């Protein structure tokens, strides 16, 4: 594991401060994200997870506390653009993020704004589209793409800026199952293959099973921080919370309570099925 890429210390953020509508969205949150990590952030509506995401690339600035990206303090206006280059964001709605009429022009948008020479832009666009598996669709119009493909173009646009970290804020929420799987596989590959730090924000814990670590937010506070299995099982054991464990985790708990011997840490349908098959001695096939 590398050094801390992002340091968040006592981060508090208040929307509409000093008005009757003031809302404390983040309340003294501290965490650090190391270079190369794949971090999931989970929380219910209103938990502050999107507010947190927007602090990671200076779209929002702390009301109190601080956020540092590679040592740069996001409150320092002189470094805003460098912070945004290092930490790229992909948002929820695939239809609001693409600006150009052709896929490769969209990916080139960021590098062009950096004033890079055309040959360098070309190279970056090609590499970015290759990395998300859309090289063949480079000449397509965005409206001809599926939701999952649009989100992958948005990811390519971020990659073309050569970021250290990609933050995906509910980027799978509006996709169909295939699009969601495409985006998750793309993100996982960027992390494992290319070493890009990933912060994946979702209220679907199922999206986060591949993460190294999951941060759970509730009412603007960090309520759990650990490997996915640990966090999900802790959430499952806390009734009445705003978070729900994934159905697979809940079913595993119910089966254990009914007497089945299942190991801990079952997060996927496949892992649960295999553990049940083992617990039942392979069923008829082994009888």
């Amino acid at each position, binding site marked *: 594991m590398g050094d801390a890429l992002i340091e968040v210390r006592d981060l508090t953020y208040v929307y509409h401060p000093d008005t009757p509508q003031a809302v404390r969205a983040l309340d003294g949150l501290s965490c650090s994200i190391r270079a190369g990590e794949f971090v999931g952030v989970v929380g219910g509506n209103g938990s502050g997870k999107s507010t947190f995401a927007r602090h990671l690339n200076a779209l929002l600035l702390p009301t109190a506390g601080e956020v540092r990206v590679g040592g740069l303090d996001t409150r320092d206006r002189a470094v805003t653009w460098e912070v945004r280059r290092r930490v790229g964001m992909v948002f929820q709605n695939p239809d609001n993020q693409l600006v150009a009429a052709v896929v490769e022009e969209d990916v080139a948008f960021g590098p062009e704004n950096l004033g890079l020479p055309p040959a360098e832009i070309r190279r970056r666009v090609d590499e970015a589209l290759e990395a998300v598996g859309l090289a063949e669709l480079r000449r397509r119009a965005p409206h001809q793409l599926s939701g999952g493909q649009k989100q992958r173009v948005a990811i390519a646009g971020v990659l073309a800026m050569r970021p250290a970290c990609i933050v995906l804020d509910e980027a799978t929420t509006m996709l169909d*199952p295939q699009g969601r799987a495409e985006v998750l596989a793309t993100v996982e590959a960027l992390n494992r293959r290319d070493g890009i730090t990933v912060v994946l924000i979702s209220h679907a814990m199922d999206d986060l099973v591949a993460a190294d670590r999951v941060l759970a937010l509730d009412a603007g506070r960090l309520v759990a921080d650990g490997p996915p299995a640990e966090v999900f099982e802790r959430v499952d054991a806390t009734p009445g919370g705003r978070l729900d464990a994934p159905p697979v985790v809940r079913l595993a708990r119910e089966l254990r309570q009914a007497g089945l011997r299942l190991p801990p840490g079952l997060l996927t349908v496949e892992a649960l099925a295999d553990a049940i098959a083992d617990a039942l001695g*392979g069923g008829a096939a082994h009888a």
Partner: protein
Amino acid sequence: MPEPLLACHDVAYTYRRGTPMAAEALRGVTLGVAAGELLGLIGPTGSGKSTLIQHFNGLLRPSRGRVVVAGQDLWAPRADRRAARRLVGLLFQFAESQLFEETVRRDVGYGPRALGLEADEVEARVDEALRQVGLDPARFGGRSPFALSGGEMRRVALAGVLAMRPQVLVLDEPTAGLDPRARAELLDHIRALHARGLTVVLVTHNMDEVALLARRVVVLHAGQVAADGAPRAVFAREDDLRAWGLGLPQAAALVRRLRSRGVRVGDALTFAEARRAILAAAREAPRGDR
């Protein structure tokens, strides 16, 4: 089969018709929805779901074919499209983004006021609609819709549709973007609305929700009906579903994998069914060392 409340006959629709950019979104959809049904409409992005449901209440005019609501052909000469439109309430994706009034009460009452109803009638409808989505009118009516949680805002938008007293409720991805708790609450309200007699068409990407709620599943693929039947029958076609860019409900995938591992286990589409099936299999397992 009773006369369907809502029917599409060979409906085709082409965006940007007559231009080089023409795109055929629907290619002859025939589909009937009977009164009292709870139908799940699924399909990958771009399959034509959103285009199809905009035909249900006459927002789009088919390039070919007919749309019939309560016996009325929407595009026949002199058809009363406004009356037909009122029978079919459409909740769009992320409908809370269309809330605009200063209070919840005014927002939900917008449609009934636009109908020219008496103030008393408007208020009565607003109260009823808010209660149907689990929002106490006394507590929420005077609040700004923008001060509510995401799940509450979504339910205010739904109340606005219900205040028009539709007979068919068409919900386009009603739970998208909601957290698990808000999602479960909304599904409960949808179930209750159906139990009170409303016909419901649920458009969703979430196979687990379809398995939980729908009595009938229609799969749209490339602008055509690719499958139409009971959830059990449609979700038995795993290879087809994958080819269409869809998947199985998680519980069905679990059962399938268990069987591939030699465990004899009954069918399940929901986690509750899976739990029962697995515990039944465990009781019958050959060895007692579980």
